[in-house]
C-alpha cells in the first residue's frame, strides 16, 4: 500500500528539514508575495523565484522533477483563466497567470515536502491563522489518506475481477460514489478512535518548538535571496 509521497518526503533529514516550521512558512509566504507582486509581462523574477526553490529542493535532497510534475497539477485550472485572459486580448496577463500559479504551487509543494503537516499547522496557528481553518485543513489532509487507501483497495478488487479498460471506465462513476460512501464510513471509525483517545479539536505534536539561531539565519538568508530574486529579476528586465 503506498500513500501520499509528500508525507514521506517531509520526514527526511536535511538542513532545511531540520528548520523550525515557522521559519519555513514565513519564507514561503514571503516568496509567494514576491511572485504575486511581479507585474504582468515580466517573467525573470518569477523564473528566479522558481530557480531559488529548485535550489532549496536540491539542498533538501528532494527529487526536483517529482516536485515539478506535482506542481503541474495546478496548470489545468490556471490554464483556463490564462486562456480567458488571452482570448480577451491580454496575452501577457494570461501567460503571467500561468507562470505565477505554477511557481507558487511549486513553492507550496516544496514547503509540504520539507515540513510534516502537523508541524506546519502548528506554525500557522502560531501566526494566528483561524483555528477552525487549521482544524479543517488537518481533517482534509487526514481524509485524503483515508480516500487514497480506500481507492487503492477498490482498484485492487476491480483488477482482481478483470474487466476491460472500457468497462472500468464505465463503472468509474458508480465507483466514485461507493468510494466516498466507504471513505465516509472509514472516516467515522477514525473519528471515534480519535475521540476515544481524548482528542479535543487540536492535534498536538511531539516536536518541541524552539526557534534557534539556525532558524533565524535560515529565515534571514531566505528573505535576502527572495528579495534579490525579486529585485534582480526586475533589474535584468529593465536592462
Amino acid at each position, binding site marked *: *500500500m503506498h*500513500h501520499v509521497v509528500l*508525507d*514521506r518526503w517531509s*520526514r527526511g533529514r536535511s538542513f532545511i528539514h531540520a528548520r523550525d516550521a515557522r521559519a519555513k512558512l514565513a519564507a514561503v509566504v514571503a516568496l509567494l508575495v514576491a511572485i504575486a507582486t511581479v507585474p504582468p509581462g515580466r517573467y525573470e523574477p518569477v523564473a528566479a523565484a522558481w530557480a531559488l526553490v529548485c535550489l532549496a529542493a536540491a539542498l533538501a535532497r528532494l527529487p526536483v522533477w517529482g516536485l515539478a510534475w506535482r506542481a503541474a497539477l495546478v496548470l489545468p485550472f490556471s490554464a483556463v483563466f490564462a486562456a480567458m485572459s488571452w482570448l480577451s486580448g491580454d496575452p501577457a496577463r494570461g501567460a503571467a497567470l500561468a507562470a505565477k500559479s505554477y511557481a507558487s504551487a511549486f513553492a507550496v509543494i516544496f514547503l509540504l515536502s520539507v515540513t*510534516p*503537516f*502537523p508541524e506546519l499547522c502548528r506554525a500557522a496557528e502560531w501566526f494566528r491563522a483561524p483555528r477552525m481553518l487549521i482544524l479543517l485543513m488537518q481533517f482534509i489532509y*487526514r481524509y485524503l*489518506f483515508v480516500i487514497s*487507501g480506500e481507492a487503492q483497495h477498490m482498484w485492487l478488487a476491480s483488477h482482481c475481477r478483470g474487466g476491460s479498460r472500457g468497462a472500468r471506465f464505465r463503472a468509474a462513476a458508480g465507483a466514485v460514489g461507493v468510494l466516498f460512501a466507504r471513505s465516509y464510513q*472509514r472516516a467515522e*471509525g*477514525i473519528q*471515534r*478512535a*480519535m*475521540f*476515544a*483517545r*481524548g*482528542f*479535543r479539536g487540536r492535534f*498536538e*505534536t*511531539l*516536536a*518541541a518548538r524552539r526557534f534557534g539561531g539556525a532558524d533565524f539565519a535560515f529565515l534571514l538568508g531566505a528573505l535576502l535571496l527572495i528579495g534579490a530574486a525579486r529585485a534582480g529579476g526586475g533589474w535584468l528586465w529593465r536592462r
Partner: protein
Amino acid sequence: MAPLIEVRGLSFRYEDGTLALNGVDFRLEPGETVALLGPNGSGKTTFLLHLIGLLRGEGEIIVCGRPVRRENLDFVRRKVGVLFQDADEQLFMPTVLEDVAFGPLNQGLPPQEAQRVALETLAQVGMQGAAGRAPYHLSAGEKRRVALAGVLAMGPEILVLDEPTTFLDPPSQRHLLDVLRALPQSKLLATHDAAFARALAARAVFFEGGRVVDSGPVDEVARRRHWEV
C-alpha cells in the same frame, strides 16, 4: 467494592430504526475479565461504544463511580481504553511513535514526557523497534499491538477490546493473548472466538437481538449457546 462499570436498562435505536440495544444490564467488577459473546449484529460493539459516550442511548451507565455524561467524558475516556476492531481506523498518525503519543499529548503531557511514555508502552507490547515506522507498513499483528500500545499509553483502568483477534494469524493471536494476560487492567472483550474468550476471561455474557440472554462461566455459556466451531 463498587463495580468499575455498571449499566442499567440501556436501550439504543439507530437512526434507521434498528433497535440495537434493548434494556441491557451489566456489571464489571474490579480485576475481572468478561467476554461478550454473540452473533454479528447482536449489539456487542454498540454496547461498547456507549461505555465511552460515543453513542448515547436511554438508561444509565456508570464508569468508576461517575455517570457517562458530556461533562464526565474526559474522565471516562481516561479510565476506559478501547481497542477497536479495525486497527487501521485506530492508527491515524504518520508514525508509530506519534500515534502512540497521541493520547498522552491529548492528556496534556509535555512532548518529551509523552514520547517517553509512548516508547515505554511500545516496549511493553514488544514493538519498540517500530517507533519510527509508518503504521500502514506494519503487519496485521503488529498493527494490533501498536493500537494496543496507543490505548495503554493513556493509563486506563479498564480495557475494552472489540474483536481483538480479527485478521490475526494463530502466532499473532498467541502473542496478543500473552500481552493481554500480563496486563493488570480489568478487561471487557467482545469476540466471536470462544477459545480466545476462554483463555482470557472467566465470565461470559451472551448478546442476542440487543439483549443479554445468558451469562456465566465462559465454558458453560459457550456450551449452552452452541458457541463452538
